[in-house]
């Protein structure tokens, strides 16, 4: 047993870090350090830099642009990305629809979509949740009825991040209402400029329209845009659940936030002394760091299992990473709010989005915005309570 990286892994880490140091555009890095929200142009620009290096979609099968890295190297890459800090790749493209098409798409779909998905020439959004289908996703009601070579889609999706910017939606629709709810679902790719689609932005607590409602009114979707078989969509959606294990804990992101909290605390004065020297504050930070170190090792243990299993077997331990990872991400955003003091009171959405100079200190004014928004970390992708249910059933057998 040796938890340290091998020399080869260390050399790889240095190579990756060096790349992030030299190739991440300074304006984007600045925004990330400030906790601002990267916009579409910036995410695209960065993804194309990664793509030129061959690192746009490292986790994919090599024939579609993957690097062939093992789980440890993928982890090293993701941690370097978070520590840079660089924007995360568009998750709907890179972590979701790409792997699904590689596993279940037709050759034609793969050729048509995958290069554009990797280079972000095509933006996808995710049409899963509905007003009545959140944690109970399988009860979704958006209906698709076959009509010749098309499906005709009617219904409504909710929590559709990037729908207002996306070219396509991967969407779960009900094609058979008369069978067990998981059995009558189909997976469609829907072009967002199809007549009958309307998008209403939903502004989250940070003041940013991170997400949307999408309405379908007799929207015609060609049958060739169906992924896999009709009524098997639930299986394809479930495929992703355990797939995202490696990055799900976001340890690097929390480290990066804690580093910023410590740096900032050095410039904040409490009782005539830097907050960074205040023992109560230091202990609070240290307590989070201990949990984070433990999570990092837990993460490594799961990665080690992934490496051995060399497959896509779902691992309920991913739920542990999700629970603890989201809690610690939230704890780090909370500390940043406390460090920032009353400067968090200003709502500076313009600065947050990047098009206006800040009134308050650039490092402080985003803290509350991020704190508010990241309450979603323990909700999306299966709330932490759902993760508890998964562990109780799949690990404890309760």
């Amino acid at each position, binding site marked *: 047993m040796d938890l340290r990286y091998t020399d080869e892994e260390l050399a790889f880490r240095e190579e990756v870090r060096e790349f992030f140091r030299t190739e991440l555009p300074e304006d984007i890095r600045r925004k990330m350090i400030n906790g601002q929200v990267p916009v579409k142009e910036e995410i695209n620009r960065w993804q194309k830099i990664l793509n030129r290096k061959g690192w746009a979609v490292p986790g994919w099968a090599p024939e579609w642009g993957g690097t062939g890295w093992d789980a440890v190297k993928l982890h090293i890459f993701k941690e370097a990305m978070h520590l840079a800090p660089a924007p995360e790749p568009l998750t709907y493209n890179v972590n979701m629809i790409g792997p699904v098409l590689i596993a279940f798409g037709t050759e034609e779909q793969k050729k048509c979509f995958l290069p554009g998905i990797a280079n972000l020439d095509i933006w996808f959004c995710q049409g899963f949740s509905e007003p009545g289908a959140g944690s109970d996703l399988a009860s979704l009601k958006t209906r698709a009825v076959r009509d010749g070579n098309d499906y005709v889609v009617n219904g409504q999706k909710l929590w559709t991040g990037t729908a207002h910017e996306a070219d396509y939606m991967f969407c779960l629709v009900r094609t058979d209402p008369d069978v067990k709810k998981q059995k009558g679902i189909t997976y469609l790719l829907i072009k967002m400029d199809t007549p009958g689609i309307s998008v209403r932005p939903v502004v989250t607590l940070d003041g940013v329209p991170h997400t949307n409602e999408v309405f379908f009114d007799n929207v015609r979707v060609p049958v060739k845009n169906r992924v896999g078989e009709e009524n098997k969509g639930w299986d394809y959606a479930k495929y992703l659940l355990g797939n995202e294990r490696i990055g799900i804990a976001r340890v*690097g992101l929390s480290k990066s936030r804690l580093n910023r909290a410590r740096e900032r605390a050095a410039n904040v004065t409490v009782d005539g002394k830097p907050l960074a020297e205040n023992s109560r504050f230091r202990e609070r930070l240290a307590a989070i760091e*201990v949990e984070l*170190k433990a999570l990092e090792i837990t993460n490594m243990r799961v990665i080690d299992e992934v490496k051995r299993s060399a497959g896509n077997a779902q691992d309920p331990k991913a739920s*542990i990473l999700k629970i603890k990872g989201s809690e610690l991400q939230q704890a780090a955003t909370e500390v940043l709010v406390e460090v920032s003091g009353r400067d968090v009171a200003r709502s500076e959405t313009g600065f947050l989005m990047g098009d206006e100079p800040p009134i308050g200190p650039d490092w402080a004014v985003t803290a509350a915005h991020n704190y508010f928004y990241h309450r979603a970390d323990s909700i999306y992708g299966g709330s932490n309570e759902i993760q508890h249910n998964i562990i109780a059933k799949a690990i404890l057998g309760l």
Partner: protein
Amino acid sequence: MDFDLSEEQRMLKESVDRLVAERYSFEQRKAYGKEAEGWNRGLWKQYADMGLLSVPFEEKYGGFGGGAVETMIVMEAFGRGLVLEPYFATVVLAGGAIRMGGSEEQKKAILPKIADGSLLMAYAYAERQSRYDLADVLATAKKDGAGWVIDGEKTVVIHGDCADKLVVVARVSGGQRDKDGLGLFIVDAKAAGVSRRSYPTQDGVRGADITLKGVKVAAGDVIGEAGKAWPLIECVSHSAIAALASEAVGAMSAMQDITVEYLKTRQQFGVAIGSFQALQHRAVDMLVALEQGRSMAMYGTMMAEDPNAEERAKAMAATKVQIGKSAKYVGQQAIQLHGGIGVTMEYKVGHYFMRTTVMETQFGDTDHHLAALARAGGLVSAAG
């Protein structure tokens, strides 16, 4: 990065796990506890025959030649069994001091005797006023010809009642809490001037408060250089924390298993109580705490003998913090989920809780180590 055990380590794990499964049921443990010393001499011999008593010692001293990982394997199994024999005191603590700091002669004289089971030892470091400060030492060692004379009181010496020899921390020079000026001395427990007051401990073993009055120690029984023992004292405490963390993981995983089993079998309102979501989620939170603890026990094991003293100290403080938090949570919830039976001596789960509670006080509690880690600047560096 590699989480695999070697072939030898796997065999060690199999044999010690089997031993605990066969010889350490709750009923058997109760019987061992009623023996004269509160543990079983026959088992001690068996540990010796299996090579367990020499796990961390080099082969040339009759040892198994293992490292921190081998100790982790043994301690985790012993944690699951709530093993009563003086393994931690003899092999990890006192044996560790000699293994890491002793002279060639001392190693040759002592380690083979620990290995064959003929010598029991204890580590007398704590004092009434010292709380968790390892450097807070009032016991004195004064030069006496070629040798030394020790005076002072040592408190809560685990297995100090049965030890043949003690490793005693005493001050050669400096002020009460100076790191400089400390020495480690090998003291015969039956030497003139040593008096022991022994008692049962909450976790089912025995401890002793020990008074040393004018106890003479030969020059050859000083471990390392008298007055310069601080780095060794730290090393012993770091090995101890790694071992305790693994023991805690064994105890926590046993509590987790027992509790989940109970949730599946205990019926109320006509159903197994494990069908209630409130209890399911609690059991999941226990599992998360256990796995976080297990991860830090592994990290602690990896760092326990790291040559970089500063990084090692931070890592071991962090390990003790996580283990303390995890074990407290798992233990308290294990009892809560059992209901009344969990609060009785008749049922095993409470005994694990008592052990992990005492463990929290050994080599510094959560608050102590959190404060130390915070002072040292925390764990996350800008380099990540």
